[in-house]
């Protein structure tokens, strides 16, 4: 694949340098059949270094997951070789099945088939709490 010229796909730009593999994992990009290019430590005008992910497939991405990992990422949608949309992210108010509660007394730990739901409790400090037991999430 020529990474400079995706015909129909998605380019995730302005990823904080070093975070591209986290995104690869959270978005389950390993499950895709199409070409995926991960560019690490690219030079950027705004940031010293950045990562870029190019996905050669017009898939729908979970923007909440991306916003959670890094709200500064920009999502470029490419159709017929042209940039048709540039999406800016924000920290999502609610996360479903992205992170999981670590409180051993939480119902979602004893009943793991429940949706893991987290709610943004403090935007400034990027804090999320389990919707069930309200325990704050720590990586």
């Amino acid at each position, binding site marked *: 694949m020529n990474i400079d010229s995706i015909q129909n796909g998605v380019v995730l730009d302005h990823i904080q340098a070093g975070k591209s593999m986290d995104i690869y994992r959270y978005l389950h990009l390993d499950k895709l059949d199409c070409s995926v290019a991960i560019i690490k430590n690219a030079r950027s005008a705004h940031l010293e270094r950045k990562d870029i992910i190019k996905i050669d497939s017009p898939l729908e991405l979970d923007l909440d997951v991306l916003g959670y990992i890094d709200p500064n990422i920009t999502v470029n949608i490419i159709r017929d070789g042209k940039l048709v949309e540039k999406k800016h992210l924000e920290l999502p108010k609610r996360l479903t099945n992205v992170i999981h509660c670590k*409180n051993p*007394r*939480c*119902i*979602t730990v*004893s*009943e793991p*088939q*429940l949706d893991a739901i987290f709610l943004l*409790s*403090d935007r400034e400090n990027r804090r999320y709490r*389990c*919707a*069930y*037991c*309200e*325990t*704050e999430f720590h990586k």
Partner: protein
Amino acid sequence: MRNLIDITDLSVEEIDQLIATAEDIIANPAKYSRVCAGKQLATLFFEPSTRTRLSFESAMLSLGGSVLGFSEAGSSSTSKGETVGDTVHTVSCYADIIAMRHPKEGAPYAAAQVAEVPIINAGDGGHNHPTQTLTDLLTIHREKGRLDNFTVGFCGDLKFGRTVHSLVNALSRYENINFVFISPLELKLPRYVKEEALKKKGIPYAQTTDLESVIPQLDILYMTRV
């Protein structure tokens, strides 16, 4: 459909209305003896708590309704592989409202996602116990005639005491409340309660390890087990 999972599921106006109703029930019990006629309350106690269960059942019977339910010592339904959701879904067919107690934190929230009738949280592990908070508020109201404009001290285990966190949350919504937290250092109120319930709203509070020195400034003292 409404649920009572956390005390903040009720607005201040709704709490005031509930307290006024409770005071009226105490004064005129006969007036309320049929208001729940034909309604069934299910008490699902996944862990036993005789006092809490009898309070709910007695209340429903006093209002003219009927009760059904279970109380189990072990986790027998869990060992059969039945989830909280399964049980609550089944019970939804028989009852008009469910009061549940469960040893796992957040179990009533999980139940509320699938229940077809309202859920009242009657205690979920060390997490929430909103009807206890309503009782505490009623007690304060009966003693003081109001829920605003005073300095309230909380003494004891403020770290794990769920009733403390709920009552702080509930009172923090009233006008002109000062909080004084009295505990040993290792049982201090958790940072998140201070930040999210108090600091964000600019509510004044103080912390100390010495009860005697603050007693003169308190209008109410809430003691918990240590």
